[in-house]
């Protein structure tokens, strides 16, 4: 496959590893933001190939993992008590809420459907005019345009039995929160290529400048990741702190203007609770007033409360990069992908699941 196989090439990987080895002189902590990047680093065995003085810290970039328990509880409540058809992306349905996951709600008779595109949820609404359909709109900036589009389409086509439960989170405010946290001491970032495909790179330039920290927009294949790491290390060794774009085959500086316009037609920026991390100001999208009839929170007058979590679960520390998954006492014992205690174990993109699945 073009633009894929060449980024998995053994020869390029070896050369990049040699380069990185020859550049690095000190210890550096680099955080890869996106769960997809974490997954690729682990799956391809890259963590074991890097020199010892480069530590990869796994960031909070798994939207399923950072969706607050209280929000999952609301989705479960909608599905079980309000008799709606609850549509969700696949990896969200297994995440435990306070009492149960959406999958458990489904087993109890709730109508929970796994979809791949929010437009399919809209189709389900069209086909089930006597039922209410709610789409659990989780994700980073990447999935926001399609989710917003479903709302625009619903309004245009006069579909009134459709709404979204928005739990969208934004990457740059999370990076700022991590950089402002004195414990973390991250030296550089690999920013998430997919998010930047939509949003462009400007916000990241500002973060890099404000915090004097190099940021490299990076893709997901082994060669992408190693090029990103090399570019980041080179900057760190030279004392530079700029925004660089490794993922130029996909990401343009200005991002995708049409997609951004669609996002801001439907959403506005608001404060957001991140599971394990806490409240981060201006770090999420909520449905704006113009489309409030499509906001499930408004439509069903839902009040999101704090959910219950296992106290021993270190998901928060893992998501902030303070702890590695296997440093948690629950990891592999009472917490496994079949009985996850925290979200990073349940989503395939979560750091704990990646470590568990690939045998760390």
């Amino acid at each position, binding site marked *: 496959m073009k633009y894929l196989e060449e980024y998995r090439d053994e020869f390029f990987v070896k050369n990049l590893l040699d380069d990185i080895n020859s550049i690095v002189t000190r210890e550096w902590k680099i955080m890869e933001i996106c769960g997809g990047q974490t997954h690729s680093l682990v799956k*391809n*065995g*890259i963590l074991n190939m890097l020199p010892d003085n480069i530590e990869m810290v796994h960031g909070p970039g798994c939207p399923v993992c950072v969706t607050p328990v209280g929000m999952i509880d609301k989705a479960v409540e909608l599905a079980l008590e309000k008799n709606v058809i609850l549509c969700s992306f*696949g990896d969200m349905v*297994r995440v435990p809420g306070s009492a149960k996951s959406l999958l458990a709600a489904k087993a109890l008779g709730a109508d929970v459907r*796994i*979809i791949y595109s929010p437009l399919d949820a809209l189709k389900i609404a069209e086909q089930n005019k006597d039922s209410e359909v709610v789409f659990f709109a989780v994700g980073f900036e990447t999935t926001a345009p399609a989710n917003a589009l479903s709302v625009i389409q619903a309004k245009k086509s006069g579909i009134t039995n459709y709404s979204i439960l928005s739990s969208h989170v934004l990457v740059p405010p999370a990076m700022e929160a991590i950089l402002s946290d004195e414990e973390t001491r991250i030296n550089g970032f690999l920013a998430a290529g997919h998010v930047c495909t939509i949003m462009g790179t400007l916000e990241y330039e500002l973060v890099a400048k404000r915090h004097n920290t190099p940021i490299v927009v990076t893709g997901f294949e082994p060669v992408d990741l190693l090029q990103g790491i090399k570019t980041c290390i080179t900057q760190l060794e030279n004392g530079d702190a700029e925004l660089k774009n490794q993922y130029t085959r996909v990401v343009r500086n200005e991002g995708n203007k049409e997609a951004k316009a669609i996002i801001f037609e439907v959403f506005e920026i608001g404060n957001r609770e991140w599971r394990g991390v806490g409240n981060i100001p201006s770090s999420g999208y909520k449905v704006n007033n113009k489309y409030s009839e499509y906001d499930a929170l408004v439509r069903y007058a839902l009040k999101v409360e704090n959910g219950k979590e296992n106290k021993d679960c270190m998901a928060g520390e893992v998501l902030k990069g303070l702890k590695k998954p296997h440093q948690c006492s629950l990891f592999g014992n009472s917490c496994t992908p*079949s009985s996850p205690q925290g979200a990073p174990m349940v989503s395939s*993109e979560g750091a704990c699941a990646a470590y568990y*699945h690939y045998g760390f």
Partner: protein
Amino acid sequence: MPDMDFKVITMGHGSGGKLTNDLLDRGVFNLFDSEILQKRHDGAVFNLEGNIAFTTDSFVINPVFFPGGNIGELAVNGTVNDIAMCGAIPKYISLSLIIEEGLLVEDLWEILAAVKIAAENVNVQIVTGDTKVVEKGKGDKIFINTTGIGIMHSRADIDMSRISADDAVIVSGPIANHGMAIMSVREGLTFESDILSDTRPLNEMVISLIDRFGEDIKLLRDPTRGGVATVLNEIAHSCKVGIELQENVFPIQKQVKAACEMLGIDPLYVANEGIFLAIVNKTVASEVIDILKSFEFGQSSVIIGSIQKDFPRKVFVKSKIGGRRVVGMLAGEQLPRIC
């Protein structure tokens, strides 16, 4: 299609009364012409000599018509293949239908026709069966159970305990077709593709391997649910051996690979219905491949790895870039990722 005076299956067709008899007479008995079945007894009576292999499987696939086949042929091929994996020659199967009220008769007919063709194709007889109807909402169009009996091949010695270090692990064809074909038509996940299910009988290929290599064929498994990775993990755990696989040799069709990449699904865990894994003595491995390649559906057969003394109970993949990773057991269903 026989001329029926009803278009949908109703509860009455499962009552045992006239409607049931109409359906069985004109539908089932008319279609399957086994002498044993035509005796219309409560059970099938026949004579078998030698050791037998005996297996059962239930089919609840949704949708019942999928790219590359339907639940009917799947139900026959699935049981035929389970018998073949024992090293036996499939002879007789039972056919049990649980139909949801409201199933279109023409759909039932198409499914039964597929059963008939699949059975004839491998020379097995449908000798007994059952038909039940459940209320709307209590089933999912149709569920089928098939139970099969086969006679063991005299040279077969398929036994997990015979696996030892250095044995070769062979896959008979491209992986992940069935699961991805189903996924492409599941509600909510529909994507355009020309991926077809690989549902097919494997008995002919298997029997020719046992004819030729006898006890050098140590284990045969068809990696259906859970895919190649799950079966290999079961083997590694049961036999306390390690299994090392080479990532860059897995046979996989381009469009299947692309669909897996797009949905974020590991093809090693995706269901197959028309390939098998063989663990064979290293000394015959390349000859096994030669034989498999002489079959239409064995063209992409390949040695994907080997049994190791080190790292017992673990399955490893050597990644394309030279890294090594564990391929574990899957927890629950593989779900498409969000982005």
